[in-house]
């Protein structure tokens, strides 16, 4: 049958293809379901209204819920997050969009000194049930201020929750769980994942915060990965399966507070670990996870924990230079082989 021929098979007789949803649409569905369920929820950010946001995550919500609950703002990130903190202190559930994570510096004080601390410093009299959605990560020539991985900026801040999905199904469930959360959530959306497609359950569901997922079972080595590093780690694992190395992949999903139990259980079983995160190495998530695994699994480890992360540089505009700096599938595969070879 050529493309020009008419397919006369009745629609109901065709085999149903699994319905695949993009990461972006999964997030959009979550926001829609949240807005429908929680009257106290509202969306706020730059051009999130009629325009639907820079990446289209809030598309059509302005038309459905109106300008009062899908609220465009001036370029005032501190005021956007300040508004979220104040509104959440009196029981609203704001969800902000900060167009690029690189702009979080503009509202860092509101996140770190207010959102993360009002519950603690005022002795539990307030909560800040807000969500800050933001696009992060590089790999597409965005340059120094449109490409950064910012989890390290917030890793040292007690009180904040950092959520980082790697696939459309989790993106939807984790966003709904974040909206339900009474703790403030920084919700990281890796730009390279926006177009990822997968089957996503219909309707309202939540994926628990603070729980990692074993994305692939294996017996020889555990890779603990976040966001875009997860599909890369899964691909590296397939590659190494051929070489006879069985890799388990743990998708962290929540970066703070992270699920140490799942990580340590996995490493206790495989006795080797590699941690993979896109951000610069020094003082990053990889350092924390590596230290924790060494401290708690030292006697069981057959090799030192391997680390895959970005080089310790800003991110350049040139795509070849950027590729030089950011970790990829081959870096993960190399780290796995090196760790296997270093085993005692």
């Amino acid at each position, binding site marked *: 049958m050529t493309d020009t021929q008419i397919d006369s098979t009745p629609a109901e007789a065709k085999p149903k293809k699994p319905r695949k949803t993009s990461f972006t649409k999964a997030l959009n569905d979550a926001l829609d379901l949240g807005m429908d369920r929680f009257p106290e929820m*509202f969306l706020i950010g730059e051009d999130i209204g009629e325009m639907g946001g820079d990446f289209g995550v809030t598309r059509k919500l302005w038309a459905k819920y109106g300008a*009062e*609950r899908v609220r465009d*703002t*001036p370029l*005032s990130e*501190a*005021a956007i*997050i*300040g*508004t*979220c*903190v*104040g*509104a*959440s*202190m*009196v*029981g*609203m559930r*704001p969800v902000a969009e900060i167009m690029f994570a690189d702009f979080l510096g503009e509202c860092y*004080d*509101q996140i770190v*000194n*207010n959102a993360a601390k*009002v*519950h*603690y*410093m*005022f*002795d*539990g*009299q*307030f*909560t800040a049930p807000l969500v800050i959605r933001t696009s992060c990560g590089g790999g597409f020539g965005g340059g120094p201020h449109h490409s950064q991985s910012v989890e390290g900026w917030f890793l040292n801040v*007690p*009180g904040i*929750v950092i959520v980082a999905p790697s696939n459309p199904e989790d993106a939807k469930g984790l966003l709904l769980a974040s909206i339900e*959360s*009474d*703790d403030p959530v920084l919700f990281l959306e890796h730009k390279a994942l926006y177009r990822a497609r997968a089957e996503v359950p219909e309707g309202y569901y939540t994926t628990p*915060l*603070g729980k990692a997922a074993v994305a692939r079972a294996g017996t020889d080595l555990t890779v603990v990965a976040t966001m875009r590093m997860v599909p890369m780690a899964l691909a590296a694992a397939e590659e190494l399966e051929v070489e006879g190395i069985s890799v388990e992949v743990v998708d962290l999903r929540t970066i703070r*507070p992270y699920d140490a139990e799942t990580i340590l259980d996995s490493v206790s079983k495989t006795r080797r670990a590699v941690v993979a995160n896109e951000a610069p190495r020094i003082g990053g998530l990889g350092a924390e996870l590596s230290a924790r695994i060494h401290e708690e699994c030292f006697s069981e480890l057959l090799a030192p924990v391997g680390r895959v992360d970005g080089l310790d540089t800003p991110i350049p505009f040139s795509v070849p230079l950027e590729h030089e700096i950011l970790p990829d599938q081959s870096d993960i595969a190399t780290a796995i082989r090196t760790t296997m070879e270093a085993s005692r």
Partner: protein
Amino acid sequence: MTDIDRHGGLMELDQLLDLYRDMWLIRAFEQGLETEFEQGNVPGMLHTGLGQEATQAALASNLEATDCFFPDHRCHGINALAQQRHKGDGERIMAELFAKSTGVCSGKGGSLHSADPSVGNFGDNAVEGSYLVTVLGVALAAKMRGESTVACAIFGDGTVGRGEFHESLNMAAIWDLPVFYACVNNGYAIATPVGEGHASADIVDLARGYGFPCEQVDGNDIVASHAAVAKAIDHIRDGNGPYFLEFKTWRWQGIFAGEFRPEAEVKYWREDHDPILMTNDMLTGMGVAEDQLATIESEQRALITEWIAFAKESPDPDLAKATADVYVQWEVKN
């Protein structure tokens, strides 16, 4: 009394006596605290509201428990008055400053983070100006819910240097939010004179471009300040959007290195334009006996002595508080 009377600065004698009492509560509180601080009994740092009693009493007496205010570093007095007026437990502000378990935040907040939302106190923030944008959210929530809450940010002149000041006024203006900007211009940001730190020594000039009512008042004149606050609050509560009011006042406290301001300036504000002496003159002019006024002062000083004793006798917070309330949904285990 009609709104015109309230806003025109007419005041019944009883009301003026109440405000005089409030001003003495603030002064006694701060002087008592200063003495304890010098003796090493109060941890942390100390910023007092001495000299700003009229501004503070005017604000405290006009804000309801269902309103919301974000106090600044020198607002112990407002915090205590709100606590005392709405719940009768002003001593819990003193206890918070002593970091005791009986404080409004169980000693976890201290001078710069005392809050009690049940009296409308949403807490100071040690990062000056930070709550200038937080207040927007409280105001927006009130507006979305159709509540008549006034969301008030009380902030000093120095704070105006922060970008948040301008982000806030702009957003309040475009969204017509019920925000009351109460700018306490006490002349100095730490040691920098207001005219050196800003393009205008009159902060009201910097606010006018945003297009909502902006007024200035002698913050040491209790009658004028009270009327100005009443007018601002009525404007906001009637659904007319934000309002900016600058109080011209002066703080007694120098800096940690001591007094740094010209002698004539110090004399003017502490002697010729002291808010309590000014009120005292008004009251005696209205025929109130000096004895009655002296009794008000001594009663407030006695009350503060009790509060200090309460604070000192109160236990430290339970050590379990150290790791409590980091998250709502998780316990912190170290």
